[in-house]
Every structure is written in structure tokens, then in C-alpha cells.
């Protein structure tokens, strides 16, 4: 049996005992166990003890790193690298800013990794974890400045995929329930609302390379559908992308990252259906949530102020 080590007195660990890749400790231990534990009766216990030891080693490594980690202190700033010295007011000029921008660009600070199939971006360098392999609508929306500049075709695909996701039967059901009775959202369960998160790996394309809404798998474990930021941001971005591709600017140009007619017509007609229905339904949803319900036996009248406040307060 392995004892719990004092965190300040970790024994020397041999390379043969421990996996080299910290992140894949469990797999490496499992692999190692296949040959090394022949004849040992309580393999489950041994495995558990080895994993404990692996955990301790990992924690030791990061605490050792923290012990040696010394950010530089210059002019009141904590600098976490060696390449940057804080600018003085006298050096705040376009020459210096350009130098910094170029250096960061050349070193990969502004890269975007896009799925060629879905246009969705990699949300983190840890997308092998449960938490970071999911996709929030907000993750996509907030990539607007970078992805549309570096990868305009990827941005369009990204928006098409998100539009399809907003046409998922569950999203549309939540819209219909809210339109019928806004209290379904306001006073119902915290799950009553349009979802925010789905699994990019579940996105399937049809023969025309258009995502299939009904195939997209949602993150059923997420606790709340109360926030409105996701749907509002996505409605905004879809409208911006439509405008950029359909309405020429002052110089008569369309943006490469906008939805052009060829992205919406012919074989791509489903894209248009998904984009327009996403804007139509999400706009009505956002308005309904923040507006008085339809008074009985009368025409629809907007009284958003009182309920808007009450509703937003409840959801906070």
C-alpha cells in the first residue's frame, strides 16, 4: 500500500514507474500494468494506488514549478514572460504598437483553429476535456473579430452551424413554449429556455454540406437555460454576417466573411432557411421573455418595462 506523501517531501520517482506524459497518466499506468502486474492478485488496488501516486507526482511537479516561477516586476506590472518590457508613456506610439502586434502575430498569439467541417473553432488547448470540448454559442460569437479576419470561409461555416443548432427541435420547442406563455421561461424550471451548449463532434452534414439540426447533440447536463446572452449574441452575429454578404458597403463591396447569395441559394437553400428562421425565432423569443404576455381576449400589446425588469431580476 502506498502512503500519502507529505507534499513537501516527495520521494524521488523513477522514470520507469511514471508516465512521461502527465496528461495521459491513467492510460500509461493501465498500459504499464498489463505486463508489470502479472501474478499480483489485487490489481484494482494496485491500480488505484498507482493513480494516487501519479496524482501526487503531478501535484509535486506543479508545486515545484510554482516555487521556481518568478514573474518579473517592472513599473508596477507583473510580467509573465521575458519578451515584453512595459511601454513608458513616451513610447506609446504607432511604431512600438506595431512592433508588439507583429511580434505577437508572428509567434502565434492570434491563431485560430477551425474545424474544416463545421467552421467551429477550437475553444481551448484543452479541448480533450469534458468541459472544454463543448461549444457555447457565445464561444463562436466572440470569435467574430479574429476568425472573420483570418478565416472568412471558416466564419461563414461557423455561423451556418450555429444557425442549424438554433433550429434544433429542442431550441424551437423552447421558443414555441415561451411564445405561448412567457411564464414558462420566467417562472418555470431553470431548464426552461433555449439551450446554450452543444457537442461539435455530433454535427453531421447532408450531401450539400449543410449541417443537420436534428442530429446535433446537446449538453443535457448543463444546469440552466436562463441566460439570454447566447441567443442575443448569435442573432446579432447572424444579422451582421447577412448584411456583410448581401448589402454592399459605401465602396460597393461585399465582405468575404458575409453570407453571399451563393451561400444561401440552390444546393445551399437550407442554409438560408436555417439562418432566417434562427433570426426570426430567436428575436421573437428574446422579445417574448422580456415582454408582457398576450392579454386574454385582446390584441397583442407590448408592455415590456414592468415585466422586463421583473423577469430579468428573477433570472439573475
Amino acid at each position, binding site marked *: 500500500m502506498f502512503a*500519502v506523501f507529505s*507534499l513537501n517531501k516527495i520521494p524521488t520517482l523513477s522514470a520507469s514507474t511514471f508516465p512521461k506524459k*502527465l*496528461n495521459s497518466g491513467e492510460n500509461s499506468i493501465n498500459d504499464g500494468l498489463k505486463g508489470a502486474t502479472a501474478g499480483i492478485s489485487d490489481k484494482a488496488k494496485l491500480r488505484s494506488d498507482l493513480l*494516487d501516486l501519479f*496524482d501526487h507526482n*503531478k501535484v509535486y511537479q*506543479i*508545486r*515545484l514549478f*510554482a*516555487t*521556481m*516561477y*518568478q514573474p518579473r516586476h517592472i513599473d508596477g*506590472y*507583473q510580467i*509573465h*514572460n*521575458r519578451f*515584453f518590457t*512595459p*511601454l513608458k508613456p513616451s513610447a*506609446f*506610439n504607432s511604431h512600438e504598437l506595431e512592433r*508588439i*502586434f507583429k511580434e*505577437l502575430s508572428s509567434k*502565434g*498569439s492570434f491563431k*485560430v*483553429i477551425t474545424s474544416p467541417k463545421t467552421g467551429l473553432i477550437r475553444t*481551448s*488547448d*484543452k479541448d480533450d476535456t469534458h468541459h472544454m470540448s463543448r461549444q457555447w454559442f*457565445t464561444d463562436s460569437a*466572440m470569435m467574430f*473579430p*479574429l476568425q472573420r479576419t483570418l478565416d472568412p470561409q471558416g466564419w461563414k461555416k461557423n455561423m451556418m452551424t450555429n444557425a442549424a443548432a438554433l433550429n434544433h427541435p429542442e431550441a424551437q420547442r423552447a421558443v414555441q413554449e415561451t411564445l405561448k406563455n412567457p411564464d414558462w421561461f420566467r417562472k418555470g424550471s431553470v431548464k426552461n429556455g433555449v439551450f446554450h451548449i452543444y457537442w461539435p463532434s455530433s454535427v453531421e452534414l447532408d450531401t450539400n454540406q449543410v449541417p443537420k439540426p436534428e442530429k446535433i447533440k446537446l449538453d443535457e447536463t448543463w*444546469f440552466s437555460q436562463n*441566460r*439570454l*446572452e447566447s441567443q442575443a449574441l448569435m*442573432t*446579432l452575429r447572424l444579422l*451582421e454576417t447577412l448584411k456583410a454578404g*448581401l*448589402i454592399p458597403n459605401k465602396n460597393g463591396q461585399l465582405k468575404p466573411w458575409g453570407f453571399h447569395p451563393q451561400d*444561401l441559394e440552390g444546393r445551399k437553400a437550407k442554409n*438560408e432557411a436555417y439562418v432566417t428562421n434562427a433570426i*426570426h425565432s430567436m*428575436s*421573437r423569443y*428574446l*422579445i417574448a421573455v*422580456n415582454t408582457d404576455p398576450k392579454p386574454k381576449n385582446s390584441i*397583442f400589446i*407590448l408592455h415590456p418595462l414592468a415585466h422586463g425588469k421583473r423577469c*430579468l431580476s428573477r*433570472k439573475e
Partner: protein
Amino acid sequence: MTWDAAVTVLAMEKLKKFLYGEKFESPTLNRVKAKILKGNPAELSQENLEKFIAVGRTFVDSRITFPLHAGQDPMQTPSRAYDTSLSLLAASDYQFIPDDLFKDTQLRLQLLKKAKAALSGPHGMRRYNEFTETTKDGKQVKLHDSWLNINQNMPKSVLEPLLKQPVISTAKTHTDHIDSSSADSLLERQGGLSQFKYTAQWQLGLSASLQSLAKMKIALLREIQQKGSASVDEKNLLKEINKESLDFVNRNVAAIPGPLLGTEKLLKADGSPCQAYIPLEAYQAIPDLNNEIKYVPGEHSLPWHSSQLFDGLRKTLRAQKMEESLRSKGLLDT
């Protein structure tokens, strides 16, 4: 939440302009507009969109514009005045005072500075500060941001001896994120695991603030360019924006990870390798081997932050070039 309300207003303003404010016509555009308006729902009429936007703006005014005018704190939620979302709001296209660019810029700058003062740490900005919430059984409890807090990546088998007590959580390990922000679940997540003073220091607020400042400066300089001269107030405002821009350029670039003396090989708080130059989501607190608390590169990189930083730096550069051009023409002479 104020940010949710403001971005809803922005979306509806964009929708109104797209449906009713564009003179350009084409068969595709007309068809797209007709499909968005399918069934002609009353709430998407121009009149109703305008009413909705007006009311939404009143709501945002009540939480941002009016309190700031009165020298009070803005409000993201009733229980949480300051939140990184306010930095996102300051960086957005939302106009607090649409008919007065100077006052709008003043207010945006005020919002940014107040959020900076309330949330800043030496390695980034807290998502929010400690706040009081009511649990299901009516108790008032203090909560803080526990995600990526100290010990976030410590397995139970390591953490329990360190804490000298069982980890109070239904999660198997501390890294099993409990997906709830209700007061009860936050309490559970925080049980023995995190402390407000060791809240992670996040980067999104830093890059959003830089975006916001660049946007302000470009708008102000455009106005000055159009008028052909700058008032004393405008010059003072520009000076203040420049001071903050310098600070946020420094804060943002200082937080990009890179090798340091003694730590050529960078690690993140979970023990995984950290890539130099790739902007991080946050810096996380770790007890070192002497039990001193150090902030080290956090668990994840975050392209969303890279996207904001790219936009913020690029626009700061553009704004600076504009300023230098106006100075060369004597438009900003003192």
C-alpha cells in the same frame, strides 16, 4: 443581467436596421427579409421593435447610465454590482448616450475605470467579487468565484491530507466541475476548496477593456477630424483614454505566458505544458513547496481572449496612427 439586456437591445437594433433601415435592394435580400418576417408577427413590426428597444434601453440606463451619472456603482445584477460582463458591455457597440458621442465616451470610460478598480489584480481581473446570495432555505451566504480557484486541480487524494479534512463535495474530484451557479451548488463547490482571496485572475476583462478604449479613441478622433478642431474637454478626454490604453496594452502583453529565468519549461496549474505566446484564460493560485501562494498560468488557453486582444491591439494601433496624423496636421495642438 444588464449585459444580457444590453446585447438583446443591440440585436434588436440591428434587426430593425436590417429589416427597415436599408435602402439597398436585391432579390436575395428581399427574400431573406421576407423569410425573417414570415407570418408577419406583430412583435417584429418596426413600431414594436422601436418600443422594445426603448424599454430595453431604459432598463440599461437604470443600471449603468443613471448610477454612473450620480457617482454610484453600475450594476450587473442586484446582488453583484461588478462583473467582467460590464467590460464586455463597454467594449460592445452599445451606445449609452446615442446622440452625444462625447458624453457616451465619457460614460464608457467611467464604466471601464470603475470595473478596473473593482476587479483588477496583478495578474488579471476577477470575474466578480464576493457577493451575498440567498440559499433555498433562506440563508444569506457569501459567495465568490470558485472556478479555477486555488486547489482547483488538486485530486482529492492529495487535497484531503493538505486540508486535513474531507473534501465536502459530491464531485469525485475537485476537477469534476459542478455545473451549477445556484447559491446552494456554489456553496457545495466552495466547501473547503476555494477562498475569495485566491480567486483566479482572468484575462477576458483585460482584452475587452483594450477593445473598449480603442473604440472610444477612434470615435473621438473621427469627431475631431470632422469638426477640424478639438476642444479642451476633448483633448483632456483623449489624454485620459491614452493613459488607460497604455495601461491595458501593458497589462495584456505582460500576461502572455513565456519562459522566465529558472522556468524555461512552462507548466500550467494542472501540470500540463504551457505554450509560450498563447494567451491564457486566467492565472491560477497554487501553493508552492514553501506553501507560499503563487499565480501560475491557468489551465486553459482561450481563443476568445485572443480574438479580443487581436481586435483591441489592432484598433489601438489604428487609433494611434489616426492621432499621430491629426497631430501632424495641428488638429490636436495645445
